[in-house]
């Protein structure tokens, strides 16, 4: 125990000596947490529409006005031909081209149905799906409003069997994106800081040569790893606290669930994550190598964590990989705890996963650290 105390003292001294790295550990996540949610916005709005109106009738004008006033769309131009409108798409100025054919109003009144052409720039899948969906909804709404306007002409018609759908959006009634992004970004930043700094740590002692001095002492392997783990764990918890404070002050998001549960998860997650960083560090020979290996795995962890795209939509093999990364399990509890107020009872499986990772990764790091070469 006394040995561990000395090791901790040494690590803390080293940490406080390098003021730039210390500042970086706290400033970078804080600044990023303030900036990132503003930039990282998946919300689909301001969809740019170009119109090609071959009809020039009252109805086509009404339709254009309806779309323009719906709030989701920005009219970027009306062209006389489809090819002109396509140029707008090619220049990235328009996302959707709506072509209203000649005879639109006449056909609607006479035959009751009319086709319109919707050309969507489909390179960005989410945007095209949501944009196309909005536009289709506005079209349906428009035809319904025509329906109501002329209903009196068709008096005596049999009653329709109507189903109306009411929606309620729980946990985030205004569907604001920041509620989704901020907790996720907090997790990512904690992961980056913790992962990179520990990955570089032991390998640095190797490069400088100071690890030899430790290797010749009777310090046990687990003491050495624990001596590295604890200081960074404390830093991680402080970073997490700072992050929660930023989240509250800047974005007014206060966890709905218990803060104690949140901290419990953070504590276990950090042990697992730092274990992973230390494992990389024991494997690597140079700092450059450690950095690249850490970057490689961090990239995979983050992409697969469900932060960018939902894990449920992944194919089965990818879900397996996703399950095997600690980040996934932490993200999938932080969001529910912060936004929905989930408790330990609902998240106990994730806790088991994280605890398992913590034991496994640190065990491997201890095993892989060799005192003799």
């Amino acid at each position: 125990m006394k040995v561990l105390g000395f090791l901790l003292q040494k690590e803390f001294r080293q940490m406080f000596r390098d003021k730039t790295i210390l500042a970086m550990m706290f400033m970078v996540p804080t600044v990023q947490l303030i900036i990132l949610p503003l930039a990282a916005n998946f919300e689909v709005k301001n969809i740019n529409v170009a119109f090609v109106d071959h009809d020039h009738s009252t109805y086509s004008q009404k339709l254009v006005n309806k779309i323009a006033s719906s709030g989701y769309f920005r009219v970027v131009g009306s062209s006389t031909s489809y090819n002109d409108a396509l140029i707008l798409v090619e220049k990235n100025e328009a996302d959707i081209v709506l072509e209203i054919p000649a005879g639109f109003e006449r056909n609607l009144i006479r035959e009751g149905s009319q086709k319109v052409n919707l050309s969507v720039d489909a390179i960005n899948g989410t945007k095209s799906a949501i944009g196309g969906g909005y536009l289709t909804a506005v079209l349906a709404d428009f035809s319904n409003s025509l329906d109501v306007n002329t209903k009196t002409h068709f008096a005596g018609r049999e009653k329709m069997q109507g189903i109306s759908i009411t929606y309620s959006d729980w946990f985030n009634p205004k569907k604001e994106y920041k509620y989704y992004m901020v907790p996720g970004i907090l997790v990512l930043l904690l992961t980056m800081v913790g992962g990179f700094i520990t990955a570089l740590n032991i390998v640095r002692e190797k490069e400088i040569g100071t690890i030899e001095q430790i290797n010749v002492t009777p310090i046990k392997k687990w003491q050495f790893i624990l001596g590295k783990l604890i200081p960074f764990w404390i830093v991680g918890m402080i970073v997490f606290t700072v992050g929660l404070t930023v989240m509250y002050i800047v974005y007014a998001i206060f966890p709905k669930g218990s803060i104690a549960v949140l901290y419990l998860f953070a504590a276990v997650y950090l042990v697992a994550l730092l274990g992973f960083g230390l494992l990389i560090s024991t494997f690597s020979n140079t700092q450059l190598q450690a950095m690249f290996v850490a970057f490689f795995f961090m990239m995979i962890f983050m992409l697969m964590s469900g932060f960018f795209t939902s894990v449920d939509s992944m194919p089965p093999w990818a879900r397996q990989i996703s399950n095997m990364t600690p980040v996934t399990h932490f993200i999938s509890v932080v969001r529910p705890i912060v936004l929905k107020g989930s408790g330990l009872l609902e998240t106990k499986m994730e806790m088991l996963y994280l605890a398992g990772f913590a034991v496994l990764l640190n065990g491997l790091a201890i095993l892989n650290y060799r005192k003799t070469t």
Partner: protein
Amino acid sequence: MKQLLAFIQKEFYHVFRDKRTLLILFGLPVVQIILFGFALNSEVKNIGISVLDNAHDINSQKIIERIATSSYFLFKEPVRNYSEIEKRFKESSIKCALIFPPDFSSDMMRTGNAQVQVITDASDPNTATIVVNYLNAIISGYQKELNPVGNVSYRIIPEVRLLYNEEQNGSLNFIPGVIALIFMIVCTALTSVSVVREKELGTMEILLVSPFSPVMVLLAKAIPYLVLSVINFIIILMLSVYLLDVQIKGSLLLLFIESIIFIITCLSLGLLISNVTNSQQSAMLMSMMGMMLPTLLFTGFMFPIENMPLIFQVISHIIPSSYYYIIIKAVMLKGLGFSYIWKETLILSGMSIFLLAVALKNFKIRLS
């Protein structure tokens, strides 16, 4: 010339000596392409849904059947009351709940207005929107079947055409981004670290006292990474074409020329970083945090730029990779020619010449 070749050879030795870094250098694009291509779907599937069916009649059953056959939804155990729904949401086992009122069918027949309630987990707003769109389509499809045509007096039928991406290949949007990111890693990060490393180890001094011109020293540093980047570029293109079935619609030559311009920009950035830093760690941090993160954020390949605050949109205009992203998207995916991208090309070339000039001018031939 012979001298230059000897120096380039020396740099290649350095690169090939570190097998692990080399492995990651070529492994990273492969893994990213596979993940983006096969694992990361922007399409929303396997949506967990629970039904609270208070009606238990033929209409509610039919709607449920329709939802079940749509393949987007994954039915979880039905629930009996609202508090169970809340519990499911908190466990994150479902993303939406569908509630039928007790008199669903009779409401439908008599008043012509039956209500179905849909509750979504809007903590993920985009998914919630897409789920609502799906359910809307399914339920109104059922309704149309009950009320055959003729009842609805006006119908506008949208015929949707998906431009540039008829098969809805979700990986399309990511490939240009992956290419830009890899160039940033290989050229900027590795180049800066390799120069700074010579400073740290003290071997830079030997290079500087040699009769070899200092500009040539930098050139010899840059060329191996240029070669590596081009190889990586070819690997990414091959994987996209043969593995992900992405068609390269525009001219391959144009794509290569534009990429070389961007590679030179990245290399200049790397040299610039190595001018101002003295340790490998700070060079790494600068290229990772200062270069890579903006590339991820402000080029528009992950997050739409038009949603960002104005200041970020301004920033995106001074980042070289955002021009490269526009160019490569236009040439590779839309099949446009040079006349559409000359402006971006001009800006990118200007940036690269400027950065290169600054980097070469500031290169210190004296060690302090």
